[in-house]
Every structure is written in structure tokens, then in C-alpha cells.
């Protein structure tokens, strides 16, 4: 071993790394092989990002045409953004929806994963498939089905509630109500928990069984085991899903677009921020202002994600950190 150590040469700082001809060939081949990805990244991500940043300082409209010269207007779009009540209202709508949707998108898959992982459940494979199947239903078809189920007049859900004794005048208006539309969207979203549930199940199955044995020997009941063993051990999985859910929340767009044709109905209550960006681009035809809104969204998601990562050390437990 000491012989090997003697042959290791520590390169002084500042000295350029000299590649052998073979190493250079390998590097070139590697770059060539990943060049499609690099070209794609530049063409479809980096350059458009830089382009939209440039647009935020212009007054580009969609009807200006691709070849017309860009007129720069300085920070006008940013000043307008700061004063635009519709922008902050739609951010508020997104956050209001998130207050219900985020906990549901984490807790419901976790609860179902705990049930799936239970040793007393027979036929867990069948149940796992059943809970996952709605996730693969085509999106527009699913919206159509939910539209029927959530119809306030003759939808199954309201009919079931009426059968349970809820007076007809008190039945929720669901997507036709400015209050009930958010729970309606959350209920629709529950269909898509299959993927999150599977990730949670894999996390639960990674918890060492000896920890459960040790907890049992210490006299811990089900609840204490869940709080002190299960949740800490799956906290990395929960953290991962939480980050993805927050990003998805701010990008929430397809359901109001397809369900309400992007109108923000009823009464503007479904004009989510991402939908407003889409409308600003294509309905109001203001590319520059839409780009400014998109950059605000990017910054908001970035800040929230950074805050999440910085707080992770207090509640996310990685076994390798011990």
C-alpha cells in the first residue's frame, strides 16, 4: 500500500491538468455522445430562458410578428407587475388552493401507503394496482368523468349527499361555486395520488424492521411507532414529494384550462397564476408581460424551494447522517 501511496503525485495548485491523448479522445467521445442533450438543453431551455428575460424589458406582443424589431421599455413591465392586482390575486388563489391541496397531496398518499404496507392487508398487490390505475387514465377523459360526478344538479357525489340527508339547497355547488371549486379540484387531484403512493410505499419498505422490533420491545404503541420510527425514516421521501408538490402547485394549470376552458370561472376563482400567464401570452397577446410574470414565478418557486431545503436539516432524517 505504501508503494502505491508513493506513486501518487499531488498536483500543485495552478498547474494545468495534462490529458493523455487517450484521455482526450475519451473526453471528445463523451462530449459527442452527450451533445444531443446539450444541444436540446440550449435550444429548448437555456436560450428560451435568456430570450424571455430579454423580453421582460420590451413591449413585445404576440401580433408584433417574429421578425419585427423589439422596442425596449426598461423596467416598465416589472413596475406594472408590482402594481397589478390581478397578478397578486391569482397568486393568492394559487396559495389558497395550496393550503388545501398540499396537505392532501402528502397525507392521503402517505395514509394509503401505510395501509398498503400493513402486514394485515391481504392482496396488497391488487389494492396497489387499483389505487394506481386512476393515475394512468388520460387526463381529458378523467376531467370529463369528474365533470359528471361533480355536477351540482345530478352528479353522483351530490346525489349521494342528498341520499345521506343533506338538504338540496345546502348541497355544494362544486365547480360552479366560488367556495367549493377548490375542494372539487382537490378531490379530482386525489385520483392522481398513485405515483406518490408508490414512492411512499417504497420508502416505508426501506425502514429497517429491527427498528420496529426495538420499538415494540420498548413498549411503543402504533401511534408512537409511527411518530418516532416510521415518519422520521420516510422523511426523505416525504421531503422529495413535498418539493415536487410545491412546484406542481405553482404550475397548476391543466385542470382549470380543460375544465373551465381557461376562463377562470366561476367568478375568477380558478384564475391560477400559471393560467394567468398562459392567458397573458395567448389571450391578451402580451408576450413581454407574460415573460415578466413567468420570471416572477421562477423566483417564487426558487425561493420557496431554497427555504424548504434550508429547513430540511431540522426535520428530514437521512440515516447516513448518523
Amino acid at each position, binding site marked *: 500500500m505504501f508503494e502505491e501511496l508513493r506513486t501518487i503525485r499531488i498536483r500543485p495548485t495552478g498547474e494545468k491538468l495534462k490529458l493523455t491523448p487517450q484521455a482526450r*479522445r*475519451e473526453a*471528445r*467521445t463523451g462530449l*459527442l*455522445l452527450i*451533445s*444531443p442533450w446539450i*444541444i*436540446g438543453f440550449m435550444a429548448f431551455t437555456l436560450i428560451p430562458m435568456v430570450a424571455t428575460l430579454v423580453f421582460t424589458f420590451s413591449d413585445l406582443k*404576440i*401580433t*408584433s*410578428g*417574429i*421578425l419585427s424589431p423589439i422596442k425596449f421599455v426598461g423596467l416598465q413591465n416589472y413596475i*406594472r407587475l408590482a402594481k*397589478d*392586482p*390581478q397578478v397578486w390575486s391569482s397568486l393568492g388563489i394559487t396559495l389558497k388552493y395550496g393550503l388545501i391541496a398540499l396537505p392532501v397531496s402528502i397525507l392521503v398518499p402517505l395514509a394509503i401507503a401505510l395501509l398498503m404496507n400493513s402486514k394485515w392487508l391481504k392482496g396488497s398487490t391488487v389494492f396497489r394496482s387499483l389505487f394506481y390505475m386512476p393515475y394512468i387514465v388520460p387526463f*381529458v*377523459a378523467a*376531467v*370529463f368523468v369528474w*365533470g*359528471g360526478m*361533480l*355536477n*351540482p*344538479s*345530478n352528479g353522483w357525489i351530490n346525489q349521494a349527499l342528498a341520499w345521506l340527508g343533506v*338538504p*338540496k*339547497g345546502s348541497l355544494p*355547488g362544486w*365547480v*360552479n*361555486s*366560488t367556495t367549493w371549486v377548490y375542494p372539487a379540484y382537490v378531490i379530482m387531484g386525489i385520483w392522481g395520488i398513485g405515483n406518490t403512493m408508490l414512492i411512499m410505499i417504497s420508502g416505508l419498505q426501506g425502514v429497517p424492521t429491527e427498528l420496529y422490533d426495538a420499538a415494540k420491545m420498548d413498549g411503543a404503541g402504533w401511534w408512537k411507532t409511527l411518530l418516532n420510527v416510521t415518519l422520521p425514516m420516510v422523511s426523505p421521501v416525504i421531503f422529495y414529494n413535498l418539493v415536487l408538490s410545491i412546484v406542481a402547485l405553482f404550475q397548476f394549470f391543466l385542470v382549470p*384550462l*380543460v*375544465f*373551465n*376552458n*381557461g*376562463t*377562470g*370561472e*366561476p*367568478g*375568477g376563482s380558478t*384564475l391560477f397564476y400559471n393560467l394567468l400567464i398562459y*392567458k397573458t401570452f*395567448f*389571450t*391578451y*397577446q402580451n*408576450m413581454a408581460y407574460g415573460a415578466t410574470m413567468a420570471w416572477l414565478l421562477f423566483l417564487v418557486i426558487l425561493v420557496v424551494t431554497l427555504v424548504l431545503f434550508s429547513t430540511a436539516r431540522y426535520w428530514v432524517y437521512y440515516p447516513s447522517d448518523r
Partner: protein
Amino acid sequence: MKNRILALAAVWVIFSMILGACSPAPTVTVAPQATQAPAAVQATLPPPTAAPTLQATQTSAPATSNRVQIRWFVGLGTGSRPDQQDAQKAVVAQFNASQDKIELVLEVANYDTARDVLSTEIASGNGPDIVGPVGWLGSNSFYGQWLDLSTYMQKYNYDTSDFDPATVKMYQTDEGTVGIPFAVYPAAVFYQTKMFDEARLKYPPTQYGEHYTLPDGTQVPWNWDTLAKIAKILTVDKNGKDATESDFDRNNIIQYGYDPVYQELFHFAGFWGSQKPYSGDSKGNYKANIPDNWKAAWKWWFDGLWGAQPYVPTGAVANSADFGSGNPFNSGKIAMSVTHSWYLTYAGQAGKNWDFAVLPADAQGVVNGRIDADTFRIWKGTKHPDEAFQVLSYLLGDGAPKLLKVYGAMPARKTLLKQWYADQAAAFPWIKNWNIFTLDMAYPDIPSNEGYLPNFNEAWNRTITFKTLLQTDKTIDYNSEFDNFVNDVTAIYNK
């Protein structure tokens, strides 16, 4: 050797990706929608095929290389329904067969996504040559994009004598002469005769100036208050009680007295008076100018939805399958609706017991009508304006009869009117009062209630938001929300 093979493989992959990216995008045939709303009344059950793709177009035969290709974009107004395609394709085929200089190509987009599709095409510098049929609402969404036709009308000595001079003048705007009349859609009260018979009510008047006779024999002016009175009698619950009775069950209504089908707020307000809804002439000093009679009109609507004696279906009911999924009069459960002649093509399920009546007057006894008008516009970025104008002339001339029939459009040309009435009478043999449309041509909305607004798309969108709020939330304070609406619209005008 191995590295060389890998390098060659990588080059091949890159090359094929670049080739793939450069090839023309395939045209996607969009499956037709089951119903097509000309205004943004939303069904809660969108057809599964209505995916909001930006490439939702279908083209007819591809252009041959030695002809000038003129693209005709349909979808901003009517024209996207499946039953309209054959006639449009026949007109295209007929035009192409009639000469050898121009190849007319049809592009049809779903109404719901047409605006987005057209925006994208224009943004990419690939806008169509001709757009239509399109009304003021659709064309104002692209304000500033239309070619001034006056030069070409002079160049080709276009004869406008077959049109009413008022309709020709309608298209002379700040942008120049942006259109030539094609179709007009006067309004009327559509009413179900059988429902009136069952309620033992007299039918609404068929002449302007006639009074209406209430059940107690009183003669009253035919105005919006009278309409509301009889609408309440015609609103019936499952026990047969009407909205004026004390034991009326508002949670189990099976028939409503009135619905403003496919009318947005400015449309409905136009039947209470027309005016320019903004003042000012430049950004920074625009102001929303909503008159008191418009505020009263929308309050009338709100009271009909949520008042003690409701007679207008709420948003939830109007969008339900039982009530026509956003097209309530077509469900056959609405007694009256004030709408336009284009609605003839949307009332296929409304039964065979309806007819037309004259429009109600306002409280001062003034009849305020509305006439929608469609035409074809030429995009100002067209590379072939002369050829586009020739196609336009064909669509407005020889191609018009076929197209007017499927659009449910009343011809703007005087020489085509007689045949139009004959065709409609054959298609709707139970209707007696066709003369109502002729009478209503005397009541146009000037200025148009779909006229230009600063930041038109966003301002119009705000009116839709206010409308759906009125339709879905009974707890709002109407006056407060009205003030919010006025303030928001003023802010939007000045953006």
C-alpha cells in the same frame, strides 16, 4: 475502432434529431365538438376531444405548387361544427375548380382554441390570409391586424349596391374599411308556445308598439318588467307550482321562464341601451363608462337568478346536462330567451313549439336592439392581398348562399333575403313570425356592444368573470361587486 463506431453513431443520432426538428409539423385533424357556443358560456362537461392544443386545425387538400395558396381560417366565429364542414369544403372545391390561379385552402379550428391558434400563427409570421366568418368580438380580439380593403375595393370596382348602406358603413372604422357585409343576425325573443299555452298566458307581441295582456286582463307595455312578470309564472317546480306561488320549491325547478342564452354582460346590456363603455382617448386617461341602465340590466339578471321569485337558471343549472350543458333554451325547458338569428343553428333540441316575438322595451319605452354581424377579414400580413381579395369577393358572392345556410346567417345582400326566408321556413315549418327579424333590422346597436375596448381581450375577460360571479354566488353584494368590476375594467383599459 470501437470509439470511432460510437462517434459515428452519435453523429447519426444528432443528424436525425436535427432532420426531425426541421421537418414540417403534421397537421392534426381535430375531432369535432358536440356543441359549439359562439360566446364563452362554459359547459362543465367539455367534450373529451376538446384538447387545448395549439395545432388543432384541419386542412383540406394541400396546395398545388403553381397556384397562389390562400389560407382561409375558420373558428373565430361560427364554422367549426361538424355539420358545417361539408358546405365549407364544397365552397372551397367550387372556387378552386372555377379558376386556375389561386388554390384556396381551408383551416378549421375549434371555437374554444381558435384564438390561441390564430395568435400563434400570427406570432410566427405564418398568419392565414382570410379569417372568417368573424363578428366584432372575434375581430376585436385581433384589433389592428386587418387589412384596409378600400384600395382593393376601388381597384376591382367592388359593387356594394346590394347591401344596406348602414351595414357597409358599419365596417368603416379607424383602421379603414376592414370588412364588407356578409351576414347579419338580428335579435328576437325566442319563446316556447306550448309553455305559454299550459300557463294560459298570451303570447308576446309580434309588432312593435303592441301592449301585452296579463292573465288578469290588464294591458301593459311589453318591456323587461313585463317579461320578468310572465317569466315568473312560466318558472315551474316539480309539483307544478310557479315562482309566484307561496309553496314554490326553488330547489326543484324543472322549467325556467327566461335565460339569456349565449349572452355576455355587454351583449345583454345592449338590449337595455347601447353606448361606448369607456371614455378617454389614450392610455392613462381611459375610464370605464358603465351607464345606470346597464347596472340595472345586470341587477335584473341577478334578481332573476337569486331573488325571492327566481326565473333564470343559475350557472350550475344552466351548465348541467338536464338544461342543455350551457345551452339552456335548447333543452326545451326554458320559456323565453332573447338571442339572435344565429341561434337557429343551436336550437335543434328545443322542440317544435317555439316562435319569435319582438324585443321588450326599456322602462322609458325605448326598444334597444342588437344586430350581430359576421364577415370575412383579410389579415394585414398576407403576402397575396390581391388574390385574398378575389377569394373574399367569392365568399361574399357566389359562395355566400351555401355558407349562409350552414351558419344560420341572414344574408346582408338584399337579393339573397327572399331565398333565405324560404329556406328557414322549410327548415323550421312550425315558426310563423319570421317577419320579426325584418322588423328587428331597424334596431341595430350603435355603437356595437362588441365594439373595440382598450386591452380588449383582458377587458372582455373581466366581464365574463363578473358574469359568472353573478351566476354562481348568491351571497355577493351586487353593488359592491359592480364597483369592483368598474374599477378593475378601468385599470385594465389603462394597462
